[in-house]
């Protein structure tokens, strides 16, 4: 059974088809890099996978179940364009809040542990609105990983990250993949993504132009897929 299965998904915004018959699979332990130009449909697809919106046609299954099932949502960690933490709350309050919502046994302990793993333990009680951009991003990463999800859906995870946050995220993703978790990430940072990816899918105007295992050729020349299957 695929950890993430996308079967004939269409999504319309008005009459415009943002996704057209998208079919993708990611096995458990795989890291699928979704690449494509702006407007190719990467974010729309990730949002449907995460259960934020429903497809017009087709279906998405996460570990065999629908994304909106409560049990499925426990398995998904989502990191989107926004950091999804509250400026008015402290770092520890933010993580404790989400630990409680995910029903973790020791919410505050889990929050403290993730603050330490992302190097934010010294500012645990500081309000997020006073954080630097890099610190906010590391907190967002901690929030996405906090509940130990088995499927990580990451939308442009490396964009606008500082060096330290990139290092933290790459380390956490490598650990997650080593533990057999599944990662699906959309990205424009091909070099960082292809280092981690086991599979690659290129979206072009809502269609899957290419889907397959990552090859050495792609790592050597990140523009290779665009040149061959994209719009050049």
């Amino acid at each position, binding site marked *: 059974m695929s950890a993430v299965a996308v079967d004939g998904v269409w999504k319309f915004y008005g009459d415009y088809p943002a996704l057209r018959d998208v079919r993708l699979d990611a096995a458990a332990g795989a890291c699928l890099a979704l690449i494509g130009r702006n407007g190719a449909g990467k974010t729309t697809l990730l949002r449907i996978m995460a259960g934020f919106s*429903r497809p017009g046609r087709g279906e998405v299954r996460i570990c065999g179940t629908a994304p909106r099932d409560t049990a499925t949502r426990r398995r998904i960690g989502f990191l989107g364009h926004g950091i999804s933490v509250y400026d*008015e709350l402290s770092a520890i*309050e933010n993580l404790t809040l989400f630990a409680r919502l995910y029903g973790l046994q020791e919410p505050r302990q889990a929050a403290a542990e993730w603050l330490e793993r992302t190097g934010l333990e010294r500012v645990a009680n500081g309000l997020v609105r006073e954080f630097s951009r890099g610190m906010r991003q590391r907190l967002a990463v901690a929030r996405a990983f906090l509940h130990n999800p088995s499927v990580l859906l990451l939308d442009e995870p490396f964009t606008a990250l500082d060096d330290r946050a990139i290092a933290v995220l790459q380390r956490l993703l490598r650990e997650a993949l080593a533990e057999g978790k599944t990662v699906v990430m959309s990205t424009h940072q091909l070099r960082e993504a292809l280092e981690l990816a086991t599979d690659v899918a290129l979206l072009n105007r809502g269609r899957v132009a290419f889907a397959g295992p990552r090859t050495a050729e792609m790592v050597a020349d990140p523009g290779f897929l665009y040149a061959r299957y994209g719009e050049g």
Partner: protein
Amino acid sequence: MTGFLRQVAVIAAKDLRAELRTKEAINGSLAFSLVILLLFSFAFDPTGDTTREISGGLLWIVFAFAGTLILNRSFARELPNDCLDALIAAPISGAALFLGKAIANYVLLLAMELISLPVFGIFYNVRWTGQFPELMLVLLLGTWALTVLGTMTSALTVNIRLREVMLPLLTYPVLVPALMGAMQLTMALIAGKPIDADNVMWLKMLIGFDVIYTAVSLVLVETVLVG
């Protein structure tokens, strides 16, 4: 069930904590309420019997207008940093999210109303404490009606640009029966009349409104948020 209630409590506590840190909604709402009460007190002769007769209605109009400032912020506060995505992604039901937010709004609205009431009494020369328990009952029921409808509309309008305009436009017409009930009962209580056979139907309607709109909102909120 305990899991559901825990989720409701977590959401309500989060909203109240965030509001107490910024005081954006409560300060705006309270200031608006006091200014409107003050301005109307200049427009009417506070000693006149007519003023006292319409003061119940005036009070609820002020509560409804000032309340939208709190209700508008309810889901809108989730927009910066895309926090709504994180809440929708969390394994909690839409009903728990809605109820948590509604309870936080209810507390804030009641706080604004309870501060405004004595000011209203002074400006309009009204002895509002004469039937205090009954008045509190009407206040609790009327405020819940405003809360539940306003919170639902806040969810409905969260992703549109003109949400500050749309929330009152969508809320007030539907709220009319509850507002009428609350106004009629408040006017009677302030005039020293008890809740009896003459006006108990307004109380029943207020309770019915609360029950129906709470149930409908709890069922529909997931569809409103996710589509």
